């Protein structure tokens, strides 16, 4: 399997007149877990969104590569799995319907075997026919992991991955992060020590705030 490489080159983000961070440069490779740490409001989520291609940088460059092949921004979503507290799925659909629509919009056929395994892993198999509006916040958080992993992405970005989860849920997430990091690139943005303990290397966003 080709390696997934990500390089951040002098990435700066400014919202209006507020500098979020300045000149972050970093190389990340698959087979590792990278952490993004910082206080509340420090820009962890902003950096996660920038890496995911959801928001643009003010200056600097980000390059995603699989082996020697550069991934163009329009195709990044095919290789990306993203979990965050500000990500919401469709409450009017049940879990299966959500995943069916997501697969179709991605242009792939739903991999039912993989989805079943994920339902089992996240303990949602017996609730998959229920509408998401009836789910608790912890169940919704677990459902977001299934959404992120459904299409076997090579880059996984987990922003505050254990928020709303009980100890059993956290253990499942840590196990998943360890397993996925064997072949893929995993980035964890969090200020929880237990989340960051998994990481081989950590970017502290606070260090990139000075003008």
């Amino acid at each position, binding site marked *: 399997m080709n390696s997934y490489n990500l390089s951040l080159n002098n990435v700066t983000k400014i919202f209006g007149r507020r500098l979020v961070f300045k000149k972050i440069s970093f190389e990340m490779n698959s087979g590792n877990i990278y952490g993004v740490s910082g206080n509340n409001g420090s820009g962890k989520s902003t950096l996660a969104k920038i890496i995911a291609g959801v*928001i643009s940088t003010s200056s600097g460059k980000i390059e995603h590569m699989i082996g020697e092949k550069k991934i163009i921004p*329009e*195709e990044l*979503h095919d290789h990306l799995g993203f979990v965050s507290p500000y990500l*919401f799925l469709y409450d*009017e*659909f049940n879990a299966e319907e959500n995943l069916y629509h997501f697969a*179709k919009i991605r242009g792939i056929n739903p991999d039912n075997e993989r989805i079943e395994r994920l339902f089992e892993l996240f303990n949602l198999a017996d609730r998959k026919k229920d509408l998401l509006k009836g789910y608790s916040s912890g169940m919704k958080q677990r459902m977001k992991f299934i959404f992120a992993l459904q299409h076997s992405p090579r880059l996984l970005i987990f922003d505050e991955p254990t928020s709303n989860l009980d100890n059993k849920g956290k253990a499942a997430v840590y196990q998943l992060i360890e397993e996925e990091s064997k072949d893929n690139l995993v980035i964890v943005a969090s200020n929880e020590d237990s989340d960051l303990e998994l990481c081989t290397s950590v970017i502290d966003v606070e260090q990139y705030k000075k003008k």
Partner: protein
Amino acid sequence: MKAYSLFKKDWHSELRTRYAINALAMFILVTISVILFSIGNEKISEYLTGGLLWVVIFFSAMSGLSRAFVSEEERGTTLTLQLLASPSTIFTGKFLFNLVLVFLMNIAITILYSALFESFVIRSLDLFLIAFVLGNFGIAVSSTIIAAIISKASSKGTLYPVLSFPILLPLILTLLELTKFAIDGDALADSWVEIAVLVCYDVIMLTASYLLFDFIWKD
């Protein structure tokens, strides 16, 4: 195909939640009833009924078509869509949804209108149908891109008609003219300038929308 899947997701969602359909149906009923009550037993001119038809269509479009993007923003699912597909796929899917909604809405309005207003008589049906199809296409594409713009704003409700008015004005004025010709029974060949204006409007709006959407979609 991906855009069609997004359209199917939106349609499935609409059938469950009825965000837009209910708003549109109620608006059409209320507006036509108000016009009927205000006219009473007065006999109004054919041209005026033609004009009122597009007024009903314009304001009905204002009441329901912004939902395509506003509902995603309100439910917080914009990020989910951003993670699923490219901006052009998203725009095409949303445009398809609005196109179907506009056609269904305007067919219902025209049928109701024809049944309730005696003085609404179309003598040149082919001309009216061409204006209707091109007009609906223009309304759908304009309202989709305006919905994308206003979905990021805090005062969505008031901004939508305000922003739509100058953008839809050339389209509505041309449609009013063509409806007048269709009521008069003019031949298709005599109205080619107005039809060309409609085609140009649709092509320009569609091209501009695809070019603009990338910037609107990314914060």
